C-alpha cells in the first residue's frame, strides 16, 4: 500500500494532464459516478455531515490495523472529490491519517471546494476523518 503522501502525489500527477477546468470536472464526475462507496445501512443520520449545499455520509471501521472509510454524497462533484479522499485515506493507519497533511485538493486546483463558504460538507468531512483517526488511535493504545 502506498503512503498517504505518495497517493496524493499520484492524484496531483493524474490531474496535471487536464488543462481545462471542464476536463477536470468531467474526470471528477466520472469518479463520482463510479461509486457507491457506502453501504445503504451506513447512510444513517449519525453518519451524515450536513452541508448547506450537499450532504455527505461518512462511515469508518477498523480492519486489522487500518481504518477503512466509506462515504457518499447526494451531489456528484462532491462525491467525486470524496472518492479522491477515500483513495487517499482509506486503508491507512490511524497514526498516519492523524499526522497527514492534506494538500492535494489545493494542488489540483479545487481549493474552493474545501472553503467554508462552499458549505458542501467536504471540509467537515476532512475534519471528521481526522477525528476518527485520533479516536481509533486512542482505542488501539488503550
Amino acid at each position, binding site marked *: 500500500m502506498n503512503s498517504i503522501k505518495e497517493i496524493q502525489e499520484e492524484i496531483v500527477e493524474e490531474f496535471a494532464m487536464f488543462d481545462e*477546468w*471542464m476536463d477536470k*470536472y*468531467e474526470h471528477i*464526475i466520472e469518479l463520482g459516478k463510479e461509486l457507491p462507496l457506502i453501504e445503504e445501512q451506513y447512510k444513517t443520520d449519525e453518519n451524515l455531515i450536513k452541508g*448547506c*449545499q*450537499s*450532504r455527505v455520509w461518512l462511515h469508518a471501521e477498523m480492519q486489522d490495523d487500518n481504518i477503512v472509510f466509506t462515504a457518499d454524497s*447526494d*451531489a*456528484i*462533484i*462532491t462525491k467525486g472529490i470524496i472518492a479522491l479522499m477515500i483513495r487517499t485515506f482509506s486503508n491507512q493507519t490511524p497514526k498516519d491519517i492523524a499526522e497527514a497533511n492534506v494538500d492535494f485538493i489545493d494542488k489540483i486546483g479545487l481549493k474552493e471546494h474545501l472553503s467554508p463558504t462552499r*458549505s*458542501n460538507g467536504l471540509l467537515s468531512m476532512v475534519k471528521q476523518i481526522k477525528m476518527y483517526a485520533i479516536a481509533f488511535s486512542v482505542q488501539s493504545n488503550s
Partner: protein
Amino acid sequence: MIQEKQILNIEKIRADFPILSRQVNGKPLVYFDNGATSQKPQEVIDVIDRYYQNENSNIHRGIHTLSQEATTAYEEARLVVQKFINAKHEHEMIFTSGTTGGINLVASSFGKKFLNKGDEVIISTMEHHSNIVPWQMICEEKGAVLKVVPINDKGEFLMEEYDKLLSENTKIVAVTHVSNTLGTINPVKEIIQKAHQKGAYVLIDGAQAVPHTKVDVQELDCDFYAFSGHKMLGPTGVGILYGKEEVLNQLPPYQGGGDMIKTVTFEKTTYNELPHKFEAGTPNIVGGLGLAAAIQYMNEVGIENIEAYEHELLSYATVQIKKIERIRIIGEATQKASVLSFVVDGTHPSDIGMIIDKLGVAIRTGHHCTEPLMNRFNIPGTARASFSFYNTKEEIDVFIQAVERAVKMLR
C-alpha cells in the same frame, strides 16, 4: 428585443453598475443571484465613498457642523424611504440592520407586549428562516402557538386554510410578500384584511418585494413591513422596519442604549419618541444614505418599468428553460416575481451551480433558508436564478446554454 428597449435603456443602465462589466472565470459575468443581493449602481458607491471622504461624523448628538450635516442627511434619507413606500409619517420608518433585524424587533417587542400563553401566531410554509425562527423563539418564551398556512403544489398560499387557522386567539400574522425561493407574490392585502377582522396584527416580510414592485403601506394597511437595503441596490447592513405609529407606540423598546432614551437615572429611564425609541446606538449612517441613493436611482428608472421589464425576463426565461429535458420548475404561482427555481431530475442543484459558475453564471443553489418549504416539495434544494432589471435576454440565453452543458456533463 425591440419591445424591451422601449421599456428601459438597458445598455445605459448596465453602464451604471461597474461590477457588471467584470469577468468571472474568464467569462463575462452573468449575475442571476439578485434574490441574495443586488448589485450597486455608481451613485450608491459614490455616496458611500463621499461620506467617508468628506462627511463622516456621528449623528443626533453633535454640536459641530459635520455632525449636523450628517444628521440632516440621515433624516432626509428617512424621508426618501417614507415617500417610497408611502407611509403616513416619517417616524414610522425605523432604521434596522435589515429584514432579519426588523422581524426580530417586532417578534421580541410585540411578543413581550401582546403574546400570552395559548395565543397564536400565524406564518406560512414558504417563509424564510428569518420569518420563522424569531417567532418560534418568542412563542416558546411566551407559551404561544405557531400555526402554519400550507401552500398548494404551485407554491400558492392557501387562503381557505388561512381562514380556518385565523381565530380570536390569533395575535399576529407574519407572512412574506414575495417568496424568495418560489417567486410567489402573495395576496397580502387580503391576508391583512382578514387578520384585522379577527383583531390580529400583521407583519409583512417585504425583502423580496420592495426591489421589484410598488409597495404602498397605507394601501396595504399592514401594521409592520420589513425590508433590506442590499436587495434593492443599497448597501448591506441597513434596512427598514415600517410600523404604524399607534402600534409602535404601544411596544416596549427592543434594545437599550444611546439615542433611544430621553433621560437616564439609575432609578428610571424614560424612552425617546419614535423612531429613536427603536434605534439604540450609533446606526449604520452611511447605510441609510446609501439606501436613499438606491431608492432615488430606482425612482429614476421607475418601479413600474422595473416590474414590467423583469416580468418580461421571467416569462422569457421560463419558456426557454422548459426546453431542457426533465426540468421541473419549483414555484409556478400565477402571480410571480422574477425568481426561477428549478431542479433537473437526475442532477443535484449544487453540481449545476458549480459548473455554470465556471461559465461565468452566478446563481444560488441550496435550500435558500427555506428548509420547511423544501421539505414540502420533498427536495433537498433548488437551483435559483433571480433576475433584476439590469439583466438581459442575452444573459438568459447564456444561462440556459450553461445549464444545458452542465446537465449533459452530469448525466
